């Protein structure tokens, strides 16, 4: 993978110097701050709505740290994953359409290094941002609530992170395969909704990476861990997806 180091350095500098540093990390920190606050305020908000309707009585248990973590995970599962899809759609096709890939790839930079670097830099950004967002969520929850059950949040986030890395690989593959970023984003959203749908099917959830979707939500509630299948198949899918993305990009004319 010739040129890997030089291109990774470029990618990391690009993240630091452009909008990319703000989007995913900004979202995660924002949700880290707001999730505990929303969890704390939700009962009061619901009660205020109920008082405007005579005869309606709503019993809401007092909010806990688990509600804050649940709110945080819900935001990761929806908005952050969609942001990953949208930003990832242009990760290869954007360089192709702007002509920057042509200048780089006519130098001693292999196409494999180009694709793998894209995956790695996005993953590094996501890991740092997720760690930061989770730490902020734990800290704010500790202030707003008693902060108990933090270990369960970390487990849930770890499952989510594995699924998010798989999504990064899928988006890199789609961005290498499609000429237009719109098509890649559309296909990525299709993949996201399909996995959500299929994860409701028991056998699929037990024996494939689809189980990570449920594992993320269940980790906050149950002590028991899912079987190794979802984790193992996710790792295999990440590796296979990366290899396929490289092969597709190597065959493309620029």
């Amino acid at each position: 993978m010739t040129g890997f180091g030089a291109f990774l350095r470029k990618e990391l500098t690009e993240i630091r110097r452009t909008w990319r540093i703000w989007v995913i990390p900004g979202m995660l920190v924002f949700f880290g701050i707001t999730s505990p606050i929303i969890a704390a305020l939700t009962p009061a908000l619901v009660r205020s709505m109920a008082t405007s309707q005579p005869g309606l009585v709503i019993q809401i248990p007092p909010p806990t740290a688990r509600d804050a973590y649940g709110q945080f995970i819900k935001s990761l599962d929806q908005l952050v994953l969609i942001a990953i899809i949208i930003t990832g759609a242009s990760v290869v096709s954007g360089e192709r359409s702007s002509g920057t890939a042509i200048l780089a790839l006519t130098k001693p930079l292999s196409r494999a290094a180009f694709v793998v670097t894209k995956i790695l830099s996005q993953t590094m950004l996501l890991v740092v941002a997720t760690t930061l967002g989770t730490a902020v969520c734990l800290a704010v929850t500790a202030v707003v609530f008693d902060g108990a059950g933090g270990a369960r949040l970390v487990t849930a986030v770890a499952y989510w992170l594995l699924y998010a890395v798989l999504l990064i690989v899928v988006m890199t593959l789609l961005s290498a395969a499609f000429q237009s970023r719109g098509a890649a984003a559309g296909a990525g959203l299709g993949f996201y909704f399909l996995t959500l749908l299929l994860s409701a099917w028991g056998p699929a959830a037990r024996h494939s990476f689809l189980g990570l979707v449920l594992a993320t939500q269940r980790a906050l509630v149950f002590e028991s861990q899912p079987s190794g299948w979802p984790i193992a198949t996710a790792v295999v899918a990440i590796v296979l997806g990366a290899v396929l993305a490289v092969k597709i990009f190597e065959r493309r004319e620029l």
Partner: protein
Amino acid sequence: MTGVRSDETAAIELRGLSKRFGETLALDRVDLVVPPGAVFGFLGRNGAGKTTALRILSGLARPTAGTAHVLGHDVERATDAVRARIGFLPDVPGFYPWMTAREYLEFAGRLFGLDSATLDARATALLEMAGLAAVTTRVGGFSRGMKQRLGIAQALINAPSLLMLDEPTSALDPIGRREVLEMVASLRGRTTVFFSTHILADVERVCDAVAILERGRVVVSAGIGELTARASANRLVVEVEDDAGAVALSDALARGVWLRSIEANGRTLRLAVSDLPTAQREIPVAIGAAGVALRRFEIEETSLEDVFVELVGGSTQ
């Protein structure tokens, strides 16, 4: 052997190279040899297939048929070691807008594995050459001409054995164009320069040799001098003392089997001939027979433009 040719004399060698996009044949069995050390012009109208050929030579596209070799290596199997000896500038270079010109040169140099000291020295020299040494703004704010000059600088960062430039002067103002052409000319003998253009004056100014591409085919490939001499050998100018004499002489010459075309402009006749020695013998006889007073009779000096127009027909597609 992995695609290495035993004959490594040619910097570029295309054999029967074809490229098809659906129904369109962009390159049609192109044969071309570019000798090492030459400044070689790849001339053709827009859409003739120049960029397609350069994309294949730089490994960005694959041929439909035929072979392309650079520095003795098949481009489809060229290793990084081969790519490290090539500099390339596409027709519209794309840069990362958040970088400065120096940062881009450093990025390019690191891809070539240059050490810090060499990279720093080359980047400084090339920025100076490109007139960008004092520019600190990011590339996103550059004009097209500035980007083109940075594109040439990045193509030279590895001190290449072969420099391939696609329309390098098309976005430049007259001064920038002159500077680029002087830079290209200064590389003669040290680096093979292969550049595509549709600007005849650029080719005449700096090239040793030229290939003319028309509708995906090389219609001629030769040294500039040889090409214009070959064309001159078939053109004659006859100037007589009055218009009536020119008309009479034109009628007389029209019977010559060696005459390909005749163009009358007042007292001057321009003739394209197929057999120069016969024409040189018979025209004075015809002048004498017509009783016309002769003012001038000579072989016409031909420019590359005349050759180009003659070969590609002068029509627009």
